[in-house]
């Protein structure tokens, strides 16, 4: 029984760390965007304040049961992925469900929440929400191809589907997979641009044309849950990339440095790019990223 | 010269076909001007469109002749071939302004007619447009008629915040400050 409580405490600590780090990154991204645009920008903790304000909103509306539970579905995805992805190497607090799932499970649990959220958005009856959802799902088909190709290349090369094993491979060989499987890393990073939905791939939210798309009917506590789930999920995705390609992290400082370095890629790419149309975005992902994915698989088979 | 010839031709042909059409053309601009009775408006417009090539309806306008007790409806047509405008005017009784609906000749007439119906209260027989055009939920008299007192209506319908009465006139204040006189051309605008 004590072990169970220990596990639950560890899970709670993991989630809190993920929330804090993720939401700080979002604030930093606003700050950096502002600096690029020659503005002063909000303080880096601005997103904390936003989340707190949304949580302290006193009223909320929903259009039905699915919209009410949509954010909870989204939370399942975020928290499950942060629990299954190893946060730190060999730390007793962060061994949550690391040994209970593998890469393919992660791939599928990652779409659980967006689908539940999409159902919630669908029930609002707002046409903008449904359009945003169709765009998001279409784009997902686009970037999943290079992403899966990169993962398949890794799994083929090292004969494992476990993330922990892939981390161990990097420790034993002393070389990050980023350098030993470069093409897989390139394909995965290109897919990451779509995963984070920064410009030019922000076709789902698209505030100018879709009024924030699937979120357009969510306010107050619903938006708060979605926002915190988004920041936890962003942290989970970054940690997954660090685990797969940069050898994981031994302590939290190392983790923060590595994840932030990765986070800069989609953000800085986004600051200077206008938005794609949906089919342009899909075709972009089926162009060079998929080519690099093929190269990664050939590299994995040949070497 | 060529233009004048064409204009003369058009005037002649219209006048032979429609006996009571009066023209007041000055040949200064590239436009013609006819006044006809409201009963023959559709046939005049049909004639101008089909025979004379005035295929485009630019606008339907209205003038309120309050002193004469009449409303004047003006149809402005344009011939892309001859590059000539035609104004066709007709007068309606101000108390009971009724005339024929014309949107079977030009589809766009529908829009203008809805506007005139709301703004001047002109009834077009058989105009199919159930919704309001611009004035949603309007209850007062047609607002564009000259006997409609917009300030009184505004004061009566909407709230009035006091403090505007002792507001200074802008021009007077400026002249007072700078010590210059109001220019003659601006005097008529001052209070």
């Amino acid at each position, binding site marked *: 029984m004590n072990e169970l409580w220990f596990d639950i405490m560890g899970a709670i600590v993991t989630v809190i760390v993920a929330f804090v780090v993720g939401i700080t990154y979002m604030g930093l991204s606003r700050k950096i965007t502002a600096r690029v645009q020659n503005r002063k920008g909000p303080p880096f903790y601005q997103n904390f304040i936003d989340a707190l304000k949304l949580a302290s909103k006193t009223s909320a509306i929903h259009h039905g049961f699915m919209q009410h539970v949509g954010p909870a579905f989204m939370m399942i995805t975020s928290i*499950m992925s942060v629990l299954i992805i190893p946060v730190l190497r060999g730390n007793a607090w962060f061994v949550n469900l690391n040994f*209970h799932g593998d890469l393919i499970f992660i791939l599928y649990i990652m779409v659980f929440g967006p689908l539940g959220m999409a159902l919630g958005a*669908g029930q609002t009856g707002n046409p903008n929400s449904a359009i945003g959802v169709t765009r998001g799902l279409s784009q997902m*088909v686009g970037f*999943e191809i290079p992403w899966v190709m990169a993962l398949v290349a890794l799994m083929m090369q090292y004969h494992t589907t476990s993330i922990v094993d892939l981390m161990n491979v990097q420790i034993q060989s002393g070389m990050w997979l980023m350098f030993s499987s470069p093409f897989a890393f390139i394909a995965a990073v290109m897919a990451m641009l779509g995963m984070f939905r920064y410009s030019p791939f922000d076709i789902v939210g698209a505030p100018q044309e879709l009024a924030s798309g699937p979120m357009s009917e969510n306010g107050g506590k619903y938006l708060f*849950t979605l926002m915190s789930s988004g920041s936890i999920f962003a942290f989970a995705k970054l940690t997954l990339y660090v685990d797969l390609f940069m050898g994981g992290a031994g302590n939290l400082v190392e983790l923060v440095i590595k994840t932030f370095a990765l986070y800069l890629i989609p953000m800085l790419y986004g600051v200077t790019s206008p938005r794609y149309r*949906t089919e342009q975005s899909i075709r972009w992902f089926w162009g060079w990223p998929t080519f690099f994915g093929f190269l990664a*698989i050939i590299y994995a088979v040949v070497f | 010269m060529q233009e004048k010839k064409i204009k003369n031709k058009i005037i002649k042909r219209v006048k032979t076909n429609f006996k009571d059409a009066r023209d007041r053309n000055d040949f200064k601009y590239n436009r013609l001007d006819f006044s006809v009775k409201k009963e023959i408006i559709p046939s005049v417009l049909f004639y101008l469109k089909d025979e004379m090539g005035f295929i485009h309806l630019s606008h339907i306008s209205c003038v309120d002749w309050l002193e004469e007790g009449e409303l004047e409806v003006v149809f402005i047509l344009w011939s892309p071939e001859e590059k000539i405008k035609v104004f066709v005017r007709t007068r309606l009784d101000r108390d009971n302004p009724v005339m024929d609906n014309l949107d079977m000749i030009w589809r766009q007439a529908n829009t203008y007619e809805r506007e005139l119906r709301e703004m001047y209260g002109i009834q077009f027989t058989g105009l199919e447009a159930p919704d309001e055009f611009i004035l949603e939920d309007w209850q007062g008299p047609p607002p564009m008629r000259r006997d409609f007192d917009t300030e009184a209506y505004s004061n009566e319908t909407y709230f009035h915040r006091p403090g505007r009465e002792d507001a200074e006139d802008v021009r007077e204040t400026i002249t007072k400050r700078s010590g210059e006189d109001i220019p003659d051309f601006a005097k008529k605008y001052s209070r």
Partner: protein
Amino acid sequence: MNYIILVVFLGGALLTFFAGKINNVLQDILFLASILVPASLFFAYVHAGNIFNLTLGGIHLSLGINAMSWLFALIVLGLGSMAAFYSVSFMKGKERRGYFYFNFILTIMAMTGILMSRDLVSFFIFWEIMTWSSYLMTVYNGKDVQTVGIKYFVFSAIGAYAMLMAIVVIHSINGSFMIEDLVRSFPEMPVNMQILIPVLLLTGFGVKAAIMPLHVWAPGAYSNAPMAYTSIFSGALSKMGIYGMVIVMVSLLSYVPEGYWFREVIAWMGGITAVIGTLWAIKQDDAKKLLAYSSIAQLGYIIVGIGIGTPLAMMAGLFLAVVHALFKGTLFLAVGAIERQTGTSNFREVTGLIRKMPWTFVASLISIISLAGIPPMGGFVGKWMLYESLLTSNHYLLVIVIFFSSTAAFLYCYKFLFGFFLGQEEKEWANVKEAPVLMVVPMLILSFFSFLLGTYPGIILKPIDAGMQYLGYGITQNHLWQTSVIFNTWGNQVVLQPLLYSIIAIFLFFLIFLTIKSFKQTRYVTTKDISSSGEVPKEHENLTFSVDFMQPFMRAVEPVMRRQIDKYYTGLANGLEALFDFMRKIYTGNGQTYAIYVIVFVVILLLFKDILF
């Protein structure tokens, strides 16, 4: 016992058909009885080794059951009895109920017969009964009965002839119709026979399993049959093709060297079937058509698993076959319920039924999540095993193809749920009511099982294991499968139970948080009260987004969609017709012409005498 079951089926069918003349309620009861009594007899008394022999006209017929066919019988009879309960309510007040019931029972009987057959003759007879009864159901009613019926008929005929030819060839070599003799003698056959027989048999089975070039009949036939029947048409009847393919791929081809190429080709055909089915499913606006194409795609996954043929892949294929029967059966039943309550199954017309038909929504939601392969539903376990088996057997490109198809499947999954249940609640559907209890309960039972298999796959993995051992897979797999842990040959595992508990815990926590946070100030508003630029939508204004739903995606994949296999078949048919027309011209009907033909023929013979002889 074996043949008593079939006789009960047949007698039940006839009794049900004629009972309709007397009393409708009696007919319903007889119908249910003639499905349920043989089904319970089957599970109570029939087990492996219980063989019934019969010699008819000098041909030795044999009926019996083995572990493999017991698994498929579970699908057929389980789904069949659920669909039977549903049918009673579904057919209330419809015309030609006797016809429907008769064919329904006959199909179940034929499928049971196929699974029991131990010789090729009775196999073929039952196969034909199944084909005919399903053909009669396809033309029961519907919009374009003629084209659909002809397509199904032609393809079934092609399959049947191919199978008949294979049976004749086998008999000419073996001198016996028994399947055991075929399996025993197959490795010693000449190489050309080793290729010809599987090709012919796989053509026959491939038609029913809707494999890629032979799938064109499926969308029309699935969507035209009554939905109560389509659930077993797609859920169970197509599995007969899978059953045949399993026997051919494993019992015959795994013992000969050519088997490798067969496996690769079949697996790739399955992969391409999955992609094509998915892409076309996304385009459909009719729920029946969407599910029909989705069935083709799902059968593609199963064929991939069977084609690869490693123990894990075979297990994935069979597991997916069971799960597919569960969720696709449920979805077709749900569409039937919606069509019965609203009168249409088109996404453009029906919207916002979630508050009107909540239980149908719950069943559809669980089935759709299972179809999409998202944990914690049964579909995930099957997909997971399929990916792991493809990875461990080095089919890396096939993994990408399958993954593309299964990611694109989210698009039509969402389209199905959104189209029917979500979106604006229209006034037109304000008075729609939930389907009768007898229709809802079977759907809920089936969807509950697809939820259960996601956490406790061991329930169904045990019979699958037994079936695979019967086919000759090693006994070592027994210790590989525990109740809720699945793992691949590399040793990587997914432990399902803690994952499910975590998911439920997180969900409940946030559900409670969302509910109690400012509970008094949380309000339900109608779908008309949306933030659409400050406008109040009027009653007649339809704000639902349902036309060209997946347009951005369709634009991206447009080059692929331009090629339709249907067109090639039409071209082939036209070409053949022209050829026959030409042949017709040779026979002028004039005796003089024929005389000239004879003379020319003789002259040619004389001229080329030396070369020819």
